[in-house]
């Protein structure tokens, strides 16, 4: 087994202007997603949704700047940490991960032992 992060990149404006109904729908999608993962042979170990990148503060070499590290149209808005036997399984999970205003990136997690 190995760990992977599923990094969710989406258009933040779409969420900023979303109706409460739409937000409910998205939350339900994420609930359905987490419920479906074990059926694919993987486990959700954790994950978080992030506040928009407008709330971000970057620090480089002690210097503090207002804003995200990199300004992009599709910003990192959340992630899952999963455990899966191989990349094919992790990609099957990623394909199921809700990201209607963008997409996801799968990155293996380094195992230190």
């Amino acid at each position, binding site marked *: 087994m*190995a760990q992977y992060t599923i990094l969710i990149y989406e258009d933040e404006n779409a969420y900023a202007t979303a109706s409460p109904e739409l937000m409910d729908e998205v939350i339900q999608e994420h609930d359905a997603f987490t419920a479906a993962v074990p059926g694919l042979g993987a486990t959700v170990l954790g994950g978080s949704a992030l506040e928009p990148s407008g709330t971000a503060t970057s620090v480089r070499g002690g210097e503090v700047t207002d804003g995200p590290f990199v300004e992009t149209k599709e910003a990192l808005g959340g992630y899952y940490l999963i455990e899966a*036997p*191989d*990349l*094919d399984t992790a990609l099957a999970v990623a394909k199921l991960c809700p990201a209607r205003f963008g997409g996801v990136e799968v990155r*293996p997690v380094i195992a230190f*032992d």
Partner: protein
Amino acid sequence: MSDDAADVEAAVADAHRREWALVLAATVRVTRDLDTAEDCTQEAFAAALADWRVRGVPDRPGAWLTTTARRRALNVLRSRGVEHRHLPLLVEDAAVPGPEELATDVDGAPIPDDRLRLVATCCHPALDRPAQVALTLRLVCGLSTAQVARAFLVAEATMAARITRAKKKIALARIPYRVPPAAELPERVDAVLAVVHLLFTTGHTVPAGEELVRRDLVERSVDLARMLRRLLPRDPAVAGLLALVVLTDARRETRTGPGGRLLLLEQQDRARWDRAAIAEGTTLVREALRARPPSRYALQAAIAAVHAEAPTWEDTDWTEIVALYGVLTQLWPSPVVALNRAVAVGFAAGPAAGLAELDALAGEPQLAGYGYLPAARADMLRRLGRDDEARLAYGEALLLTENTVERDFLAGRLRDLGAP
């Protein structure tokens, strides 16, 4: 060098071409690490050179090489110290190969035919196309990094970096070393076929440079298509691709004339086309076309078969070719296919009709900078006697063509038109 030594060298070279993938794929099972498996396979071929000189070439060189490589791999694993304990290992499943997949090695133990695993791993969708192509040539065909680099006209260091990165990704991201499950198989086989087809077209018409046909790439891609046919005998897309490469390659001797000059289909000596290859290809096309919908390779092969079966250029069934391109554009819309269809229309219904079809493609962004479009226009205009416009179009085509043989052809046509 004695005759014997020369014979042994030839036998090893032959085995290298035919058995490399089998030996490496079976050795990866032992090492679960591509680099170590490659080293052991390389050493087995070096050992063959010495051993076969003394003991003679074995009856089944593949089995001898596999046993030797796997024994070496076991020794390497046993002698390895703790520093290798954390080497990331390939992920595999414990699938038992079917009886038809099993050969036996010299000790009578079964050799698993893991070539499908190997090629599926090299062409995994998580790797980009240049990486898939490089890995396939290196791991499945056994080419050196320098040879792979030469084939794609890139610096050896660039190719080495590309191969290293791809291998690292396979290990660290845990791309599994296995035959894809049935549900994913068609999509995965499609990626493998795309790689083999790209190798063939790159070899068949080198995008830039001197030779029109890069023989080694063409031969490797035909070998790969034959290997896939043996591994997936019931897959119609595989039959289609093999048909396409075999039928296209059947014309290889006639594609260039004296001094390497490019000869059009119209000018080629059809008596020198490889009839055995054409017979093989047309049988495969029939099989491949039974799939619904047929694969793009099957349709392209069917077009090649219509050309191959026409006794003369004048006898070509252009209506059939236009119809086949029509199906192809419907199933796989592409401006390049539409361009080929327009050229066929120019022969089926005359250059004015062909030109009208070509002009309809003028705005296609994908064809901007594609030398074959002005070249095709130039030919229609020439046949219509619109020489001034034809000269301009040949000039435009020359600006966009890098292959020396093709450039010479276009320049010759331009000269034949004379001064304005």
